[in-house]
Every structure is written in C-alpha cells, then in structure tokens.
C-alpha cells in the first residue's frame, strides 16, 4: 500500500513536466509576442516612439525572451514552482493573485456540484438497477438520457429566459453571486441571497454529470448483481435488501469513485460557459475574459493551474480507490 502510494505520487512528476511543457509550448506558439501586447496595453503610452526600443528591451528581459528556449523553459519551470505566472497584460496585477481570487468561487460551484451529483445519482442508479424494467426505471432512464444530451448552455439560456427577469417568471437573479446591496445585509440574509444566486448555475453544472453518473451507477449495480458472490449471499439466506445495500453496494461503488477524477476536468471546463452566462467571477470567466483580451499570462496561468488541480484530483481518487478496494493494496 505504502509503495503503491509513493509510486502513485512519483508518477505526478512526469505529468507535471508534461503539463508545464504543453503550457510553455502554447505560450511560445501564441501569435503576437508579449512585447507587442505590452506596447498595445498602454504601458508604452506617454513616451511614444522615443523609448520604444527601450520598452522592447525591458519587456524582453522581463519575460526572459532574450535567452535561448531551453533557458526560457527552465525559467518557466522555476516560476511555476511558486505558481508565478507573471503579471496580467491587462492590468499588470500578478496572475497568481487573480487566480487565487477566482479559485474559491469555482471551487465552491464545483464542490457543490460534485456533492449533489453523487448524493442524487447513486440512489437513483441503485434504485433503477434493482427495479430494472419497471415503469419508474424506464421513465428515469429516458429522462436521464435526455438530460445527458441536453447542452448546458442551452439549458442555462432557457432557464434564464424563463426565470430571470423579462417576460415570464422573475424568480432568480441573472448575474453574479450577490445582490448589489448584499454587503449591508445581516449574514443570514447575505447567505440566503448567495445561495439564491447559486441555484441556477449549480443546477446547470450538476444535471449533466448527474445523468451520466446515475447511468454508470445503474450499469455498475446491474453488473454487480450478476456476480457469483451475490448469488452466494442469497444462497446463504441474506435478505435481498441486505445483499444489495451491504454487499453489492460496496463493490459497485468502487468504480464510480474513480469517475470523480474524470468528472473534475469536465466540470471545470463546463464552468467556463456557465460562469460566463451567469456572470460569475470564477476561473472560467477569468479565463474567458483573458482569452478575449489575449492576456496570455492569465490564460496560461489558469490553464496550468486547473491542470494541476485535476492532477491532484486524479491522484486523490486513485488513493481513495486503493483504500476502498483491498485488492489494490496487495501488489
């Protein structure tokens, strides 16, 4: 177990190198050099023409562009080690600062979603598997299938159209995480307001994963019910409920745990659109705005950062897996 854990952790290293290489390559390939961007962003304003050369030299030095590529990569690695992605072209603030501001927002959304996905999908999946073929299972299967195919931005737009201001129902706020005047409210009201703002975005982030996950849970449970050891438990007189909820459940949950790892990048990717639609100042919106503004340091920063986050998630699920499944410990 210990060796497995250490080996799993060591495997992070090549993945890290890969991630840093890809993001470095992307910076290198980006059209329009940082110099051009700095000039454009108005840093050169005021001393037009006169000191352009000097500005170019300064920027080159700042970004290490005057050094050969391997050295640049080494520098990039060094900066990566303290999560230093440089300053934003747009407002000159350190990228790290901007990311650390946006991260909690995205994490809140995604952690809530993952929790909801697991809490709802597993009971649905198990119920469907046990009662497979009955009316409720059939209805659930069709409903979940449709949800699974429903694009989240379409759903988000529909929900906004229906529930946010405008023609129909004005139930939910359309923008942000707080009402404008929320700062002056009591914390209870503040919190309620906050959750009220979260309802639609979390709903949009959750339903897709929910549909997929409950289908997995259902398939996994059906597979488990067919196993010999389930038959054994039944042959020894255990009631079907006990067999399913005590014995089969654990076996069928193990593969579902690993899916949490793959859920994370999908959710983070999905939050770009949802955060954009609902104007939520998280990582997704930060990235999108940066892409729009061609603010490369920010783009690279969020990209690398979310990859690191995913890597961590993957390792965590692997470890979790090893803890739940006794077969892994034994090499």
């Amino acid at each position: 177990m210990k060796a497995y854990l250490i080996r799993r952790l060591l495997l992070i290293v090549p993945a890290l190198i890969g991630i840093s290489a890809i993001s470095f390559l992307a910076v290198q390939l980006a059209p329009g050099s940082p110099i051009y961007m700095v000039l454009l962003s108005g840093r050169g304003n005021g001393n037009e023409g006169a000191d352009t050369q000097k500005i170019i030299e300064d920027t080159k030095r700042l970004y290490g562009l005057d050094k050969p590529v391997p050295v640049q990569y080494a520098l990039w690695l060094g900066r990566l080690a303290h999560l230093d992605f440089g300053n934003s072209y747009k407002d000159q603030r350190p990228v790290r600062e901007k990311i650390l501001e946006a991260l909690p927002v995205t994490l809140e959304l995604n952690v809530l979603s993952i929790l909801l996905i697991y809490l709802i999908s597993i009971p649905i999946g198990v119920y469907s598997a046990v009662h497979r073929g009955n009316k409720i299972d059939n209805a659930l299967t069709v409903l979940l299938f449709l949800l699974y195919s429903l694009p989240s931005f379409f759903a988000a737009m529909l929900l906004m159209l229906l529930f946010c201001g405008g023609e129909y129902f004005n139930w939910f706020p359309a923008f942000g995480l707080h009402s404008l005047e929320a700062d002056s409210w009591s914390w209870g009201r503040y919190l309620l307001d906050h959750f009220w703002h979260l309802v639609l975005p979390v709903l949009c982030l959750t339903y897709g994963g929910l549909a997929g996950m409950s289908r997995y849970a259902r398939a996994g449970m059906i597979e488990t019910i067919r196993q010999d050891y389930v038959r054994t438990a039944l042959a020894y007189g255990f009631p079907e409920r006990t067999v399913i909820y005590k014995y089969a459940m654990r076996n069928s949950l193990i593969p579902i745990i690993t899916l949490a790892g793959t859920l994370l990048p999908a959710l983070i990717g999905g939050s770009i659109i949802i955060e954009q639609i609902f104007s939520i100042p998280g990582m997704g919106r930060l990235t999108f705005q940066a892409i729009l503004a061609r603010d490369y340091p920010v783009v690279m920063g969020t990209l690398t950062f979310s990859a690191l986050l995913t890597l961590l998630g993957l390792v965590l699920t692997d470890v979790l897996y090893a803890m739940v499944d006794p077969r892994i410990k034994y090499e």
Partner: protein
Amino acid sequence: MTPLLEVKDLRMHFPVRKGVFSRVCGAVRAVDGVSFSIEAGKTLSLVGESGSGKTTTGRALLRLIEPTGGQVLFAGQDVTKAGKEDLRVLRKQMQIIFQDPFGSLNPRMTVFNMLSEILQVHRIAPPTEWRGRVEELLRLVGLPQEAADRYPHEFSGGQRQRVGIARALAVEPKLIVADEPVSALDVSIQAQILNLLEELQERLGLAYLFIGHDLSVVRHISDEVAVMYLGKIVEIGPKERVFENPTHPYTRALLSAAPMAGAGPKHQRIVLQGDVPSPIAPPPGCAFHPRCPDARPECRELGPTLQKVSEGHRAACLVHAPEHQ
C-alpha cells in the same frame, strides 16, 4: 539418430518487481531447467498442476514468449537463436493448439480466411488453390466443406477444436504442441478429439508435445510422460513405466489423487497436505519436501536431480531414486 525436438535446460524466469521504483527483487521461476526430447511421430506428455510451468514450457519452446535460458533444438537447429526469417520457417514445422475452443479462434474471421491467410503468408499455395487446400484441411479434421465460410461462433466446442487443429495443420508441421486441447470439452467430445489427434499422428507422422492435467487422458495418448512440479521435471519416462511404477512421491500422489472411473471406489489414496508453494519463493532443497509424505531431513537442503530408475525412466528424488555412486 537425433530426436526431432531436443530441449536442454530450458528456463523461463519472470522478474518480480517490488517497491517504489519497481526494482527487480526476484524471479518467478516458472520453468527452471527443463530438458526432454521427442522423437518424430511420438507423443511426450507434460503433466502437472496449475503453476507447474507446463504451459509456459510449451509456449517458450515455440518462442511465443522468449525463454530466459537454455536451448531448444528442432531437427538440430537452435530455435532460441533463430532470427526473424528463420523463426518464420521454423514455425512452419512447429505448431500449437490451445485449450479454450472459444478463445483460440479469431471471432471476426471465417474459417477460410483464417486458413488461407496462413497459406498466403507461408507461400504454401497460390491463391487459386486456397479453396481446395482449405477444404482438404477441413476434410482431414472431419469437418464438412461448408464449414469454410462460417464464423467461429457458429460451431460447437468440439468443432472449434477441430478448426484449431486444421489451422495448425495448414503449414504441414512435424511437431504440434497441444496445450490442454481437451480440458474444456465434455467427455464424449473429448474422445472424438483424442481419436482425431491419434489418427492424424498416424497419417501424417506428427510428433506431439501434449500438455495436460488429466492423467487418464495422458495415459491414453502418450508414449512418454514427464511430470512437472514447480517448474521442474520430477519424473520422466516411458508411459508404462511411469504409470505402473511411479517413483517420485509426487507422481504417486498425483496418480492416487486423480478420481478415475473404474478404479474402484476404495482404492488407496495418498492425500497431499497443503497447497503448491509459490514459484517466487520455492522451498529450498527439493521443492516438494514440505508436502512430501516420505521427506527426510536432507531433502530440505539438497536439490535432487533426475536419476536413472530403469531404462529411460528417471526421477528426481533423494529417497526413491538416490544417486548411484
């Protein structure tokens, strides 16, 4: 006269990796110094329980897995040193049939495609003759001509095994490694396949390396028998001698343990204690000593080698086949 196949000190060790850096910390000695030879047209059987290394031996001598050491001489030519082209030529003469009649045929190929491909690769016949050759092969193994255009799933277990045999015969080999060819079949089908194997041997002069665990089948089909335990041959000799006069305690136990119909219900039984030890850490000395009813103190230290019991019959046991000095 040189034998058709001569295996000398064949070894197949799989590395065991452990720890953080997957360091090699030992080896599974799946096959550990096995020697035997087969004459043209004869059958040698390898018997043993799972983990004894009999299947690995069969595969290693065809180089389906690369052996770690030793020599395999086929008609005097060293198989283990053969280059790519030589190996292709050698594989025209040595073939293999498998246990699982469901897994040994490619489910997406018709029998004709399967067989004609071999004719093509080995340039045995021009395309115009493929159809005829395939039908001839099918006739040889007792399948109707229509079988050529069927897929494996359309056959019963016994018929599939016949297709497997036809595939091995397509290259006109001299030796066939038969890896538990009847273990997965029902008794009545097993008899059909065993008869077919014998018929083919007589008609085509084939030699078989027959790998099996069912002693009654082995007794029926072989000329010579080698008993394997934990990667080593513990007893080898002509069938009659090994079966009538088993010398190694393991052979004796194996023979008495096998429930055989017709042997009478109350025949004397030697029931071995314990499991087969792991080949990663085989016991020192004679690997069989922890389970051996006749073990002596020296068995724990001295590894026995095969010693002559009678003409052609050898056993590796310090107690029953001591070295004559």
